[in-house]
């Protein structure tokens, strides 16, 4: 029950007052290789912070960086806000779909990648940009997308 212990540990470290909910959720999500918060974790958080389960779930589903469904080990987020759009982000999204063989909103069968659109994360200077977990990659071309996916695949092995 590593996940349970780690979740309890995270709550203890961050604090068990209701205002720490978001910080706790962010931390708990990072404990999980598939980058999401499990139902079991939500239950633990609700007890630990003494808040209703519906509240924990409500907040977890409100914020777009938090997820209650399985994602990839690498969460690929393609910016689709104005500045990246005028720098051809749609082509980049298409290239990722081709390179990964999945559509936006899906996870690859091996659980390695998930692909989605995201709102602006401030990478406009190097648009079109994508965010993969905590890393930002910019000035992308279709060719670079394929290279990037390739190098991440190798990194994972």
């Amino acid at each position, binding site marked *: 029950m590593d996940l349970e212990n780690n979740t309890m540990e995270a709550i203890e470290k961050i604090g068990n007052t209701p205002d720490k*909910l978001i910080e706790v959720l962010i931390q708990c999500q990072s404990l999980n290789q598939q980058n999401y918060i499990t139902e079991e974790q939500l239950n633990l958080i609700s007890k630990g912070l003494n808040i209703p389960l519906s509240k924990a779930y409500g907040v977890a589903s409100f914020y777009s960086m938090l997820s209650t469904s399985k994602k990839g080990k690498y969460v690929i987020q393609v910016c689709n806000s104005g500045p990246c759009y005028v720098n051809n982000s749609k082509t980049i999204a298409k290239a990722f779909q081709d390179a990964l063989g999945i559509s936006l909103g899906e996870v690859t069968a091996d659980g390695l990648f998930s692909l989605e659109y995201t709102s602006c994360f401030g990478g406009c200077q190097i648009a079109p940009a994508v965010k993969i977990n905590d890393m930002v990659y910019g000035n992308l071309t279709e060719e670079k997308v394929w290279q990037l996916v390739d190098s991440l695949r190798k990194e994972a092995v």
Partner: protein
Amino acid sequence: MKSFVSKLCGKIMPLSLKEYREHGGFLGLEKALFYMSPQEVIDEIKESRLRGRGGASFPTGVKWQLVAAEGDEEKYVVCNADEGEPGTFKDKALLEGCPFQVIEGLMISAYAVGAYKGYIYIRGEYPNSIDLFKKAINILKKEGYLGENILGQNFSFDIEVRSGAGAYVCGEETALIESIEGNSGSSRFKPPYPPNCGLWGKPTLVNNVETLANIPLIISQGAEEFLKLGTKGSKGTKLISVSGNVVNKGVFEVEFGISLREIIYDICGGLEGNKKLKFIQVGGSSGACLPELLLDLELDFDEFKKHNIGIGSGAILVVDDSCCILDFMRVTTEFFKHESCGKCTTCREGNRHIIKAIDRMIYGSGTERDMQIIKDIATIMRDSSLCGLGQAAPIPVLSLLKHFKDEFQEHINGYCSTGVCNFKGEGKSHG
């Protein structure tokens, strides 16, 4: 270009307190604590005529006075570092270039309004900034700049860093407060405004990163120095972030009074591939889209107001003539649809219905009535939405309708001159 508020960015190591002090760091705080009463600090800021740099451009000194006037023992100051406006990345330059300057500004604001606790709410998309601030705060605690009786004076103050988790609406101050409290980021009904009733129902001062970064400089150099910069109605400098189809994208500090044309063609080197400019969007996705004929407009709050537009966060998106107005409007509205918190009906439903009307036009079943529908919905949203998100979402829509009416007409007639849209059936392409 000017170098004032951002002058230490890139020049010093962000986490070197020694270097920050060598370049005049904490002189503002020392001056405030040793020689000025809280009211004198507020008066100095009022005299500088500094206006908020987050987007609403509210006079900073007036806001401080409102919080200071509250009798409550418990007050809070909050630094709004939830820079979510698309095309805006200027706060990041300050957050990662000189965190101590932002913290010093927050400390001075706390001293002025009588707060003992501060929060820095940084968007979750900036993990580096969050990390830097946590480290910076630890350094300051060790060095006696944070904690009890700071610098031996009767002033105690502590700061906590809070992370956002991906919600544009949390840049709105009441939604931000909800988020710090651990809730979903839905805007509150106003009034009461945060200066009366904010975080945990207590008087709360919320200021943008760039606003706070100006404070130490104004206090240490005096309001008079600050007043020398800028125009009659807009004092100081502004950080702008330029993106889109332009040669040099990036964050630049400019003095108020510079024209948009100078920014785009002199500072940013014009458009990529010497293409023709179609429009620029000023202030992020919630800003107005201006055609070329308005490029000689000077960066000035009052000048902008004459045209009924705002400077907003200082983002400038440059768009060339390969862009389809309707497709761009769809992308922008899709963003607001996704980011709407869903609390008020006009914002939640309005964006969806604008997209439906755009889609009818893009896919070939649009009529003149759709233009009117978009205009009506946008106007209702602007006038009746609960917070800035819903009120500002229709601004780009209305400005595009005003300046690019022909292109809407073109789509109703079944073709798209930029060749971006796909029409059902036979599309007459005039590409």
